[in-house]
């Protein structure tokens, strides 16, 4: 019963958030200068051509009406048509989604696979050179900007060693899909992995001082079990928050990584929409990203509960 009420409240909250975000982005795009027709026609536009195009794009209709039409479409799952591509926004998002999704999943997997053992190793050997090395590496990973790492990776693995293709996306008739994924995944997972190592190590060290760990040890549990079953599980809670935030950002597409590795993902699509004042496309992108972030936050909340029964969903 409690659970159902909670879910309902949460769902309403999510819808309101997405609507608010979409309204704000709509208003912003109207307030900033620049006209889609002008951008499409560039410096050679005749005034008649501009007027005709504005009419064709529906830019001559009042603002409120445009928003209302868009909103009604949204309720039917119709995000309208892109001004520049003249295709349904849903279709455009759908095309770009696999690139972004695969990349995000690969980056999160890689980050977790590296961060969990590294953080445990560092925590268990706190204060030793091993710990110092891992902490140093994670600080470096946090400090180095991913676009720079991306370029370095391309120079090293594509130009010098010739192991991997310098970006791009799977081409018809050529290209091992895995090869194209490796470098952007590494570049994208670096800041997340580094952040996780640093955070996990810290929270394991905190948890390990707690009473229940002392109890576990006093019971005679083997040290490995103490770390894996008790310490890590509790230390994962703050890490989940960080992971959730990063995942939301990853699903929005990483503009810089997509740009450097020439990947046709969501980030570049949204950037294109901004530059071209393609408001239906941008609105669609924003709604999609907002929904993804809200959903991830919700899932994160649920996972908190399963990690730590004291954080019950009914408590909110």
């Amino acid at each position, binding site marked *: 019963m409690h659970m159902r009420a909670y879910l309902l409240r949460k769902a309403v909250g999510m819808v309101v958030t997405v609507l608010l975000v979409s309204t704000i982005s709509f208003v912003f795009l109207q307030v900033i200068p620049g006209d889609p027709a002008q951008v499409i026609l560039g410096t050679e536009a005749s005034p008649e051509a501009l007027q005709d195009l504005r009419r064709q794009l529906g830019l001559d209709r009042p603002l409120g009406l445009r928003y209302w039409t868009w909103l009604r479409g949204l309720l039917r799952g119709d995000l309208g048509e892109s001004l520049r591509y003249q295709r349904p926004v849903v279709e455009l998002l759908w095309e770009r989604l696999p690139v972004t999704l695969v990349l995000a999943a690969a980056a999160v997997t890689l980050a977790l696979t590296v961060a969990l053992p590294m953080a445990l190793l560092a925590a268990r050997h706190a204060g030793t050179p091993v710990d110092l090395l891992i902490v140093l590496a994670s600080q470096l990973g946090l400090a180095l900007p991913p676009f720079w790492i991306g370029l370095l990776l391309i120079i090293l693995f594509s*130009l010098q060693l010739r192991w991997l293709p310098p970006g791009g996306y799977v081409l018809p008739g*050529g290209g091992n899909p895995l090869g194209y994924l490796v470098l952007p995944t590494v570049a994208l997972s670096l800041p997340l992995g580094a952040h996780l190592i640093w955070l996990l190590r810290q929270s394991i060290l905190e948890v390990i001082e707690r009473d229940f760990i002392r109890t576990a040890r006093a019971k005679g549990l083997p040290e490995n079990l103490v770390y894996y079953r008790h310490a890590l599980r509790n230390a994962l809670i703050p890490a989940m928050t960080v992971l959730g935030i990063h995942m939301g950002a990853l699903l929005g597409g990483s503009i810089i990584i997509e740009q450097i590795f020439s990947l046709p993902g969501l980030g570049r699509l949204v950037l294109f929409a901004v*530059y071209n004042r393609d408001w239906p496309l941008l609105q669609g992108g924003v709604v999609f990203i907002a929904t993804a972030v809200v959903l991830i936050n919700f899932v994160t909340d649920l996972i908190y509960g399963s990690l730590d029964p004291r954080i019950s969903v009914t408590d909110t």
Partner: protein
Amino acid sequence: MGRLVRVLIVSLAVALLLSGVGWGKGRLVVGVPADVDGLDPHRTVAAATFQVVCNIYDTLVEVTPDGRLVPGLAASWEISSDGLQYTFTLRPGIKVHTGRDLQAADVAGSFQRILNPDTNHPRAADYRVIDSIATPDVETVIFHLKEKTPAFLSNLAMGWAAVVPPEAVAQAKFRPIGTGPFTLADWVPDSHLVLRRFPDYFRPGEPLLDEVVFRVIPEPAVGIINLKTGAVDVLSWLAPQDVAGVKADPRLKVVESPMNGIYLLALNNARPPLDDRRVRQAINLAIDKGAIVDGVHWGQGQVIGSHMPPVSPFYADLTAMYPYDPDKARRLLAEAGYEQGLELTITLPQPYDFHIRNGEIIAQQLERVGIRVRLEVMEWGNWLDRVYFGRDYQAATIGHTGRLDPDPFLNRYASDSRENYMNYQNPEYDELVKLGASTLDMDERLRIYRRLQEMLAEDAVAVYLMSPHLAVGMQANVSGWQIYPIDILNLRRVCKEE
């Protein structure tokens, strides 16, 4: 164990195959900085689109790399002595991609589509001079013009005058059907676009390639790595700073040519203190254009003196009018009442790096004569709105792409032109530019356009900085690449020796 080895060998072989070792002969991969914005030549102004689409569609008339007009779909043409009637005879046996013969009515229909307001052809104005189109037989198209228009023939060679057959109209944006050397095989937006050889192309033996892949690589530094690793055969645009490095690589080569275009510092002639000609002249004298060509463009360009690139046959060399002379600039400023200097805001269009850097160097040079410059970087959509359409600015850096005829290039300075964003007002200029647009005699036209360029320079309407060079990088085994005075990547005669 044996099984494992077999599996490993097979997967390795598959991976090698997939990684492109066995790509078909005659497949050329071209790296381009931007994607097409659709494939309908009548509904775009995007250079990236015309670069690609010229391989799918044809024009009645074509332009050679050195700027001559030669037959395209038309085998020949005749112009009546009063300059009002253009009669084109189509080549025999031109096939549309669907397999049927192209007919005169298709050509007429394509121009009717250009002129139809619902098409929203951005440059329809260039063709409004057409009064009527007649097709007395299947291979003859006659254009009757409302008035003498010497630019008409060259306007037919522009990418946006491509002949789009009626069967393409319904889905021209995604499924182009033309008569060109290639057909569209695949397009994944922002990633790649594939063209395949059209076997029935009307020029026997062409195209030479089986397949062309355009790959979108937005980051110049990554483009260079793609070229150096052989992931692309051609990089359609080299950043000036990369030209020397590509030339130094023995496996690569560079094809380069002066571009039909100019970079300038636009001045708002209606806004004080720039409404004073002496101030504009002082700014011209205070800018060392050579330093901009070398400092921003690594020497990949040529200094100019007016609104015309040196590749144009109408170019007049006016570079001597404003030599770099800061002392004279200061004197002129003092004469105009600005002994104490003045303030100037230059609006720079983002994300066009080179225009931004042009502005940065200009700012430093102007400081030396007492002009305090405020640089304002403005995102392109905003820049267009404020500077170009709103004319709400003092000075701005920008470029203009040249045309084949000087009239569409220079008529923007007519007082009543909507494109006159520099607010130049000169009745004498207005009259002369109108005369140039209707004069058929070539010598007379040369004289007129020379005088127009002189007027712009004398009045220091803008600071005409330079005409850039275009450099294309490619593998040494690619041949037949040519650079045209209009922005197209014509791949008909390009080939790749294996």
